[in-house]
Structure formats: C-alpha cells, structure tokens
C-alpha cells in the first residue's frame, strides 16, 4: 500500500452490483452494528443520534433516499465534509453497515424542541452570532460558516458547543497568538499554515501573513476559541430556539 495520501485517491468502484441491499438479515444487521460502532459511532453516536456527524436515527436521510445512494455515501464519503470514505471495505461490509443505518431510522426520531423562527431572531440579534458566523449570505468570517450545519451536526452536539464551546474545539481549528520580531502581537484564527509560514485572520477580520522566521513567538491557544459560552447569556428556552434554528440549516451554499 502506498502513502496515506494515496489512499484517498483510491479509485472507487463506480458500478454497483445492485440497487437494493442484498444483506439485510438479522445477522447482517448485527454485523453492521459492530462495524458501525467501530467505524461510524465516533461521529454519529452509538445509537446514530448524531454528534459531530449528522443524526442517522431518522427514517428519511436527505442524502440517501434509497439503498443505492446510502451505499454510495458510505462507500465514497461526502467530499468536502468530514465524512470519510469506506473505500477499503468489501461490498458486503458496506451493505451491512447500510442495513444497520436503516434499522436506526425505524426508531422514533429525537424531537428537537424549540422555535426555529425565534431562534433565527436571537441568532441575528441578542446572540450576536453573525458577528463571527455566516448563515445564509450574511455574517462574519471568524467562525465556521453555518450553512448546512444542520445536516452535519446533531442537536446535542450543537447544544454542548453553544453552552461550553471550549469542550468542542476541533483539532484542526487553530487559534493563535503570535509576536513579530518587531514586537507586534497578533491574535487570530489560522487561515492556512505550512512549515515556513502562517496566515491569520484577526478579530477585526484582517488577514495577516507571516514567515515563521519573522516571528519571535508562535503560541497555539490549544482548546481555546474566541466564541463565548451562552450559558449565562441566553435562557434555556432561547438556547433551544437557537438549536432548532441551526438544525434547520440543512442547505450548503
């Protein structure tokens, strides 16, 4: 096998053996559960209720309206998202995972309490979320764009992030404090980085570019984020409304 980077270039089998899942027996579903728990539950939750990944415990999966499309999503992953491919698995293993995912949708769906319309108003107004986050066409660029967040994240995960943002900082999110050799201090979010250079967006939305040898100090604020906790800012009902609004943001622009 080649280097890791090569694995992602692995040509995916494009021709499906069939359109309907041929492996749906209880034994298949049970094996699918074991595979799911090992390979998928880290993001989608043990019961598929979502988290870092979307909630799968629902009868209608937006990207997988039929067996063939569910197979494809598991096999190829979703390019441009954190959903990886399973391109090294056998066909039967993919179908078994698909069978288990479908079985999750037979359970009653988790209801998201809260008023999405009201949540949208809080998002724009009292919460001040748009200062950093884009939803729709408007908003800041400091934080991740939230279009499509409802398709990517589960409600419980979003709630946790809102109440305790520093418990959920992804490893790839770089919040930095740097000092130039001339004594200028810049704090900001990493836009890009390589061995010799780093580009940061500061809190006033300005992008700074540095060669690392121009810096006397590069400090990563690991586990930190400029996002405040909304625990004492919003009421419990308002938090639920914002979550309902975020869950409604299914569309990626």
């Amino acid at each position, binding site marked *: *096998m080649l*280097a*890791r980077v*090569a694995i992602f*270039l*692995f040509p995916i089998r494009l021709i499906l053996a069939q359109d309907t899942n041929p492996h749906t027996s209880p034994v298949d579903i049970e094996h699918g559960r074991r595979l799911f728990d090992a390979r998928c539950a880290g993001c989608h939750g043990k019961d598929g209720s979502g988290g870092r990944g979307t909630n799968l415990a629902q009868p209608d999966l937006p990207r997988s309206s039929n067996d063939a499309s569910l197979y494809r999503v598991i096999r190829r992953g979703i390019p441009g998202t954190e959903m990886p491919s399973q391109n090294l698995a056998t066909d039967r293993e993919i179908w078994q995972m698909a069978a288990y995912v479908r079985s999750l949708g037979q359970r009653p769906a988790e209801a998201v309490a809260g008023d999405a319309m009201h949540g949208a108003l809080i998002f724009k107004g009292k919460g001040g979320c748009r200062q950093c986050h884009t939803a729709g066409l408007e908003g800041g660029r400091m934080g991740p764009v939230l279009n499509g967040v409802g398709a990517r994240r589960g409600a419980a995960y979003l709630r946790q992030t809102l109440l305790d943002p520093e418990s959920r900082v992804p*490893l790839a999110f770089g919040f930095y404090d740097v000092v130039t050799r001339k004594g200028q201090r810049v704090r900001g979010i990493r836009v890009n980085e390589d*061995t010799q250079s780093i580009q940061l967006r500061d809190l006033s939305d300005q992008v700074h570019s540095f060669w690392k040898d121009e810096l006397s100090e590069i400090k990563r604020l690991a586990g930190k984020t400029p996002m405040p906790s909304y625990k004492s800012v919003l009421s419990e009902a308002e938090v639920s409304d914002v979550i309902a609004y975020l869950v409604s943001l299914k569309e990626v622009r």
Partner: protein
Amino acid sequence: MKRAAVFVLIVAPVVAQVGFDRIRNAEREPGSWLTYSGDYNGRRHSSLAQINRGNVSRLKVAWIYQIPAMHKVETTPLVADGVMYLSEPPSNVTALDVRTGRKLWSYIRRFPEDLRVCCGQVNRGVAILDDLVFVGTVDAYLVALDAKTGIKRWETKVIDYATGHAITVAPLALKDKVVVGVAGGEYGIRGFLDAYEAKTGKLAWRFWTIPGPGEKGNETWAGESWKTGGAPTWVTGAYDPEMNLVYWGTGNPGPDWNGDVRKGDNLYSDSVVALDADTGKLKWYFQFTPHDVHDWDANQVPVLMDGEIRGQKRKLLVTANRNAFYYAIDRASGQFLLGKPYVKQTWASGLDDRGRPIRLPNTSPTIEGTHVWPSVGGGTNWYSPSYSPKTDLFYVAIREASDLYYIGEAEYRPGVTFFGGTHRMVESDENYGAIRALKPTTGDKMWDYRLHSATGAGVLSTAGDLVFAAAEGTFFALDASTGKLLWRFQTGGMIGSNPMSYLSDGKQHVAIAAGNDIITFALD
C-alpha cells in the same frame, strides 16, 4: 580547460551510449544522473558542490516543463549526455533538451480502461542502458525505447494486469539486464522480481517473492494462502557490482489487515532479498515484519554504505523501514547488526538478537479498531532516503502518526481489492513530520527539521553540504550538518517525488517534480 568542455558538449550527444560501466562508475560523472537513485548504492547523493551552504540562497528557477497528466507525478528524471529522460503518468516517456527544457520526443502509450492500480496510475521513473530507455507500464509491460528517438524497440508482457498487477517502479538496468518489479499487494497477487535481457526483452530470470510448493519458505503460509499473499516489489532496489547482488525490498502480505487467513511468517513479504544478478537465485533474505498485519511494506530503497558496527568495518545495507525501526544489515551475509526505532512505535517491545521483532500483545487489528503507532503510512514510505559520505549521515523524511486498525472480511476474487480490513488515522497533537538525520552505524538521531505536515517526498544530499527536501508544495534546502533551513521555494503543487541533481552547461542544477511540473533550479 575551456576548450575541452566545448569539445565534450559537441561530441556527447552523438555518442549517447550509457553503458553499464558508466552507471557502475556513476561517481566519476556527477554531472549525469544515470539511474533512479543516482548510483547503484541507492544513496541519492550528488557529489556536485557548486551549490553549497554559502550560495544556495541565490537558487532560482532555470526552467519548468509541464507534464500533460491527470495523475500524480512521482518520477525521478535521469540526465545523460544533454538529455533529460522522464516518465509521465500513467506510463509515458519524454526526453527533454536539458539546456532549455524543450521536448525532443515523447512515447505515449494507450491503455485498456479497466486498469487496476491501488493507489494512483503513477510511475517513478525510467532506466537507461546503452542506447535504450526502459519503462514499466501500469498494464504490466516492460517497454524499451530508442534513447535518441523514443521509437519502441521491443515490449514484453510481464504479467496479466487483470489480476491486479501493475508496474509503477523505475526499473534497474545492470550489466546486460533490466530488473523490474510489480505492484499489486492490495489485489492478492503472488509477487515476483524479474530480469529481462536488455537487447531483446527476453525473460532472464524470475524470483518469486513467495516460494511455491516444495520450496523452502512455502510452509510459512497456511494452506493455499501463498497463492494470494502479495509481497510486491514496487520500489527500485540497489546493486553491489563487486558481489554481483541485487537488493530489493518486498511489500505487504495480502490481505493487508486480516492475518487469520494466512497464518505463519509469510516469507518473503516485508523483507529485503539479496539475489544473484545473473541467475536471480536467493543469496539471503531478512524479514523486517514477520506476519505483518499493519501493511508495513518494506518497499524502501535499500542504501549500501560501509561503516563500523560492533567494532568491525563492514559492508552494510541500511534502511529505515515502514514498521518504525531503522536497520543495519551485513550486505554480504544478511546478518542482522543493528535495529532501533527511529519514530514512535507501540507494537514491539524491541528486536531480538537476530532482528526479529518481539511483538506486544493486543496490537493486531480488531473489529472495534486497535490503536497502534506507527500509522499505515509508516515511519517513512516509498520516497527515497539519502546517505551522504561527506557528513556520514542518513537522511529520511519521517512521519510520527498512529492509526486505528480494523480487521474485515477477506474473500479473494481475481482483480478485486483484497484488504481484509481498513484503518483510520487518529488525530492527535503528537502527529508531525520531519526531515530526520540519523547516524547510520547507530541509528541515533542527529537532528530534525520539523514539518508542519508530514511529507510524501524524498530527499537528496549533496557534497555542497545540503539536503534538499519538500513538503506542503515547498521545495527547500537544509544545512546537511545541522538541519537549518537555508533556502525555500513554494512550487504551488503537491510534491510526492524525489529530487536529483546534474550539470548543464557546466552549471549544477537541482530538479524535482512538483504538481504536474518538472522544475529545475540553478544559481543565477
């Protein structure tokens, strides 16, 4: 002096014969680059010193040649007599005028549509011998081209591509033969290494990297598993003309992560084999990872150098293996001399006196996933290391990372991938890459140039006390003694290839494939 140089310039292109003696004595003409690793020792070292610590900061682009390719470019160009020969993915060959980067000829190969190549339709380079240029193809042919015109002289079918075989390796031309290996460790092939008569394309010998029934070593494969056991030969080896031995690394046993269906040591997977260059007969072997269940191919370029170990001066074969251990082996006898981790590993408590790993419990893949360092990509991979006789250091691009290893079902079907599981990289603050310098006779780390992201590109050392390497699209030069950064150039393309060096118009150049480009650099 000046007159002599002009004379050579005019005459050389007419001669255009790269005989075995020239390759064998490559150190006598450092202005050429006559074989994949620069010489038969696998050192990827240039004894040119025009570009050095004092002036490398003035290095500038001389020219860029853009390859019309859809696939990753992994080629190491060769340079001989004013011509640069390079393979272009999938398996085309182009000759360039080395002074200007202008094309002299191209060989374009047509392919069937149902190719089976696990990890990209790539090619790592050509070989040259006498007046022929050799390329292995992803549909598993060996092709010989006229070095002056690119016209095909002969082609030989090495094996059927439909069973998952492909050729991506740069062949190794020696004496009157061309040695070539195969890829396909993810398709349940039975691996081998071949030698062909350079003039005719006739098979001279074949060494099966998995012994057949009745042969010694076949008993290390349970049942019929030897038939689908992998052990491919997809990275170029080395050659010692004095001992007339070819040294070649072998890849993972198949299926990759499910060892239950192939119980035993699985010889000669994950090994280096020493073969008689005339007959292909096995002189000795050393297996790095018996019964591998992590996909740790030994497909690294073996580096031949001499040094003192255990109080005795020896002819050595040294290698940083994908399994996280650095090894020094007596290349005459195959005796294990030294083994030591060069990156973090959690699968073995160490090596015994004969170099066999002492495996820790609970490190095999499971359905739930088993967390092991190093990752599937290994401590290093196919991209070349380098040895500089000037600094007496071994340079290697390393990766500190771990994976979750999953076992899966393993059902062999011809031409279909045969992984027997999967893996997932574990995100961690502990992950990083580096260009690492090791003392070759001890395996001790001498310095690190730490990389933000681990690289998939190899290294070149030069007598100008420089190490050239690449990461994140940047091609850069380090001080060979200290690892200090001295020069950098952002190429704008992914670099998954190896640098090389040559003279043109009497000036030293350094070249690398980046993105779809061949970029060559010289002092302004």
